[in-house]
Each structure stands twice: as C-alpha cells, then as structure tokens.
C-alpha cells in the first residue's frame, strides 16, 4: 500500500485558520493567466420538458477549469450542480433533455457529440464518482469485475492484465489486502472502502477530469476526512482537473482551489476559495455561511436562508435570489425584481466574479453579515 503522506485522521474537525495554508499547499499549480483550461463550460443550458412545463435546470452556466486544480461547485438541492456535471459527462437521456451552449473537454466539444464518441470520453478522459457508494456499485458483480470492465472498455488488454491493474488501483486508493478484496462483492465492503473502490474505478483509466458528485455525503465524518485526503492526494499525483460537487462548505475549505456557488441553475459567485470564504460578495453565499452551525464558542440559533429555492418551472423575474434576499431594498430602483444581474468579473480582484446588483458588497458584508457569522 502506498502510504498517504498525510495522516488520515487529519482534517475533519480543524478550524478554518488551519485549512488555509493546507489548501494553498494542495493547489499544485497556481492559475497561470492564459493557461489552456481542460474543461470549458460556456453558456450551458439544460432543460427537461415535463408534463408541467419545461424545467430549466441549468440556465447559462459558464466556467472553466485547468488541469491540476479543484473547483468546488456549491449550492442547495436543485441548484443545478449535479445536472450540469451530468451534462459534462453526457449522461442525460438525449431524448428527454434539451441541451445548448458548449462543453469542451480537452478542447473537444461534448454538446451534440455522437454517442459513440462520447463513450470514448466517458470513463477515459472524464470519470465520475457518485454520492452513495452503496447504490452506485452494482450489487451482483465483484469489485474487481466492475473496475476491470471500465479498464478493458478503453484498453485492449487481457483479463489478467486488467485484473492486475484493478489490484494496483485498489492498492493505490488504500484498500488493504487488494488481492483478496478484488474478488469480493460491494456488500462485503464498508461504506468508506466502497467509496475508495469507486474512486479506484473512476481513476483506472487515468482520467484528466474527475467529477466527484458529493462523494462524502453518505459517509461518516471520520471516513469523510479520509476520502477527502485521498482525493486530494490522488489529484496531486495524477495532476487532473477535479470538479467537486458539494453542499458542505467545510469540505470546500478542505479540498478546493476555486468555488463556484450555484443558485437556481446558474453561477452567482465564482473565485478562489480563500477569497470567497474570506469576503463573499453575494447575499446567497452569505446566507450559506450563516447557516453553518458553530462548532466552537457559544452555540446560538441557526440562521437558515428564509424561503425556499424557486421552482425551476417558474423563475422569479429579475435576480433569481431576490425573493429571499434581505438586501434587496438597498438596490435603488427595484432593479433586483426587474433586471437579471450579469456575472461580472471584479476588476479589483482578479479571478473573482459575482452576480449581484449591490454596489458595495464588501462593505455590506463587513457591517451587516460578518458580526452575525458564528
């Protein structure tokens, strides 16, 4: 077993100050301006026609991600984070999904690509780790079978070679005794081990892009920390681009280089992790930070964001967040209700952008929000 160079128990319940230097160490490569991004999503729209009308699940999402960096996509259920990532993998049913815009993986356009070409990318250039390893692995096939299937699908190798590769991958993700474990079934693995096997399966073909869809949500907190360390560790070794979907801001601080906050199918804030967690610029991000329970200090009441996410069938006019936004009145001329704000890059703050009409969000954050934060 290749020992992870950080102790596995580290991470879970450390406070934010110790996260930051670590996160900085982890981003192996700083963003070089003009560097060719590996994943480029431009004006992505995903719509599902349903009996009640068209569900606009993703509405004009744009982001890009170079190799070696981790982007955390954060948002509530139904914000479109999973749907947009499934779109990147081409996993939506073609017949019942309408997609437009552009998704480029390694320079190749995925939107509108033939199923056959997509099959060559899925599992090879781009792989995905799913939320619940219990239901995401086939209960009737052995772990080895499932890893080998992915490997042999993209490589012309013998069964023996594929098996050796499966054992190697299981060893790489820290599963003890891989020669024996390779022939076991998913139900013989614990939750954490199953998720490790899932990661081994995703990485078996050295994908340059790894999408992790809430990979730690179904796990115990201690196991969560181990899995996060493992993903960070593997990313350092493989130098791949990682999209990490989560709703857990603690996890984000732990693993990501950049954050993309999504609300109602679109990005509301995007930028480097330390800056966004330090001085978030969007009222929705403020709300997310306020709703994290305090672990230390005096426990007070939680401050959830009032209201519920809008129905994707009937979006509010103007800013999608306006019905839940307490700072709506500070924008003159009822703009929030009438005009949809654009995602605007901050000139003073390279790499950051936010979608809000507020003129001075940093000041509002400092005077109104920061004192309330736990």
């Amino acid at each position: 077993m290749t020992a992870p160079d950080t102790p596995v128990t580290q991470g879970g319940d450390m406070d934010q100050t110790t996260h930051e230097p670590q996160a900085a160490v982890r981003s192996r490569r700083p963003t070089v301006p003009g560097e060719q991004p590996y994943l480029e999503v431009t004006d992505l729209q995903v719509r599902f026609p349903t009996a009640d009308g068209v569900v606009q699940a993703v509405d004009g999402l744009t982001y890009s991600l170079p190799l070696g960096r981790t982007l955390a996509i954060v948002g509530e259920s139904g914000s479109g984070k999973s749907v947009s990532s499934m779109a990147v993998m081409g996993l939506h049913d073609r017949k019942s999904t309408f997609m437009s815009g552009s998704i480029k993986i390694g320079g190749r356009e995925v939107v509108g690509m033939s199923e056959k070409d997509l099959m060559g990318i899925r599992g090879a250039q781009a792989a995905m780790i799913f939320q619940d390893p219990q239901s995401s692995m086939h209960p009737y096939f052995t772990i080895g079978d499932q890893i080998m299937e992915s490997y042999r699908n993209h490589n012309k190798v013998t069964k023996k070679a594929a098996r050796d590769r499966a054992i190697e991958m299981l060893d790489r993700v820290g599963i003890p005794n891989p020669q024996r474990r390779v022939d076991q079934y998913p139900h013989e693995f614990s939750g954490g081990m199953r998720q490790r096997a899932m990661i081994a399966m995703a990485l078996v073909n050295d994908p340059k892009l790894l999408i992790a869809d809430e990979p730690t949500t179904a796990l115990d907190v201690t196991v969560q920390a181990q899995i996060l360390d493992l993903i960070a560790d593997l990313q350092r070794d493989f130098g791949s681009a990682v999209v990490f979907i989560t709703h857990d801001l603690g996890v984000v601080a732990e693993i990501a280089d950049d954050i993309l906050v999504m609300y109602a199918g679109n990005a509301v804030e995007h930028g480097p992790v330390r800056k966004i967690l330090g001085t978030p610029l969007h009222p929705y991000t403020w709300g997310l930070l306020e709703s994290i329970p305090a672990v230390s200090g005096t426990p007070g009441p939680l401050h959830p964001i009032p209201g519920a996410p809008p129905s994707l069938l009937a979006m509010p006019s103007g800013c999608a967040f306006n019905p839940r936004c307490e700072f709506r009145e500070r924008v003159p001329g009822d703009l929030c209700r009438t005009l949809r704000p654009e995602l605007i890059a901050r000139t003073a703050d390279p790499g950051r952008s936010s979608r809000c009409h507020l003129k001075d969000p940093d000041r509002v954050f400092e005077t109104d929000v920061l004192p309330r934060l736990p």
Partner: protein
Amino acid sequence: MLLYILRRAASAISVIFVTLVASYALFLLAPTDPAGTICGPKCTPDRAAEITKALELEEPPLLQIGAYLKGVVAGRDYEIGGTVRECDAPCLGYSFALGRPVTELIGDALPVTLSIVGGAAIIYFGTGVLVGTLAARHRGTTLDRLAVSSSLTINSVPYFIVVLLVALYLSGVVIPRSEYHPLLENPLAWAAGLMAAWLTLGLTNAASYTRYSRAAMIESLGQDYVRTARSKGISERRVVYRHGVRAGLSPVVTIVGLDIAYQLTNTLFTESIFGLPGLGLLTLRAFNTYDLPVLLGSVLVGSTVLVLMNLLVDIIYSFLDPRVRIA
C-alpha cells in the same frame, strides 16, 4: 453453500412430511366413511369391508399413517378379496377404482404435465423477458405501448376461453392436432402434439411476464449503478443487458419458479381441453369418482413439487444475487 442447501433440504422434507400427515388425516381419518366413498355408489357391504381391511382403516390412526409412510419408503402390499396387489416404493396408495397403484398412475401422468409446463415456461419466460426488456428500454414509445396494451388484452380474456378458441379454430388447422406421444419414443411427434398446449399456455403467460419484466427492468435501469455503468463509457447495449437485466431478472426468476410449481398441479383446462392425460386430468377424474387414494397422492406430489421449486428458486437466487449467498 452446501450446508445452506442441506439445511433447506431438511426443512423441505419436514414440510412435505407435515403435508403428508395432514392430508392423510383429511382424507382417510376424518369421520367420512372413506371405505364407502372409495367403494363408490354401487358398493356391496363385502367390498366395503375388503377395502376397510386392505387400507387398515380399523387400526388406530397412528398405525395407519405409519403403514402409509412405510409404503412410501419401502412399499407395501394390499390384499383385496384374497389376491395380493404389490405396491412398490414409493407407494402412494392404491386406486381401487382403477385397480392400479397411485404411483404408477402419477408416473404416467407426470411426464405429460412436465412436458406441457416445461415447454410453455421456456416460451413465456423467453418471450416475456425479451419483450418486457425491449419495452422498458424504449419506454413511452409505440413499441412499449403496443407491448403493454396487447399484454393487458391477452390477460383480460379468461384462460379457458383462450384454450377453447385455440382448440376449436387452430388446433389441427394451423397447429398440429394435440395429442401426447412420449418424448423418448418419438421426439418429433412429442413436440408436434404438444405445440398447441405450449403456445396457448406459453403466450398467455408471456403477457404477464412482459409486464413483470418491464416493471423490473424499468426499476433496474433507474438504479444508480446503471448510471455508474454508463459513466464508464460502456455501450448502451451492455449497460442494459449486462447491468440492467442481471438485477432486473432476479425477481422475475422467483415468480417463474412459483408459477411453474403452480401450473404443474393446475393445468386442468389445458389438459382437459387438449385431451392430454396429465396430472390435472388424473386429479379431475379422481374428484369425479371419489378416488381418495389418487387425490391423496396428487396432493402429496403437488406439495412436494411446490416445496422443491421453492428450494430450487432459493438456490438459483443465491447464485444470481451474491448478497443472499450464505457462507
């Protein structure tokens, strides 16, 4: 695994034993004058006395059941009117109406029923799973709607009417005339003679199996692990037929096992209308003539078949689904 099978077999045997004792008590110990019933309407007192003696009906119940059990295991002799009739093990009794041991009667009828049900099962399982899977894969399309609606139509016609219509209009015209030839004597005639029964029983049941398989496949194809399989970049065909069918079929296999067991003892309409001398006809005749020993024998065979099929299904299931495999 072996231990599991042995344990299941032991419990199967105990179930059969209980059934045997219970049905013996129902037919021959109940205060219903079994000897008179077996003897029939034109019974002379002498004949009734002979039967009473031959069946040892005057002995205490435990001894009677003991003698019956001994017959099942080691065979027994029936003395009727001075002549001794041998009944070899497994002796399930002696039919005084037909003058033959029950085991022989069932031995003649069972292959007929097995042939009918076995052939039909291949047809309905094969067709049902195939059409059901296709319908699930192309859910919502014309093909799917056609499969579902024709399946419902077929199932809403009572089975005996279907059999009757086939026997009246198709058998002997489109399909070879229905008759039974033993498989080993003439396989071709065997298949030809059973064709009508196979198609009728097979296709009507295929309708139900189409719907079972369709539902099971829709559920299976919606599972997370199918999405995982797709994310590996394997072909849609492989996703459906390797990952989907494997999980989708397990519940269908359970239903098939129980259906086969049920049909082996309930092919009454098929056999009587197509004139095939199987277990159903034998039982029907025994009902009409109050032939209690034959009835007792068919109840025993029926329950044994049911228990064995259950055991078989459990064993097959444990091969299909590793989670129920017991070390």
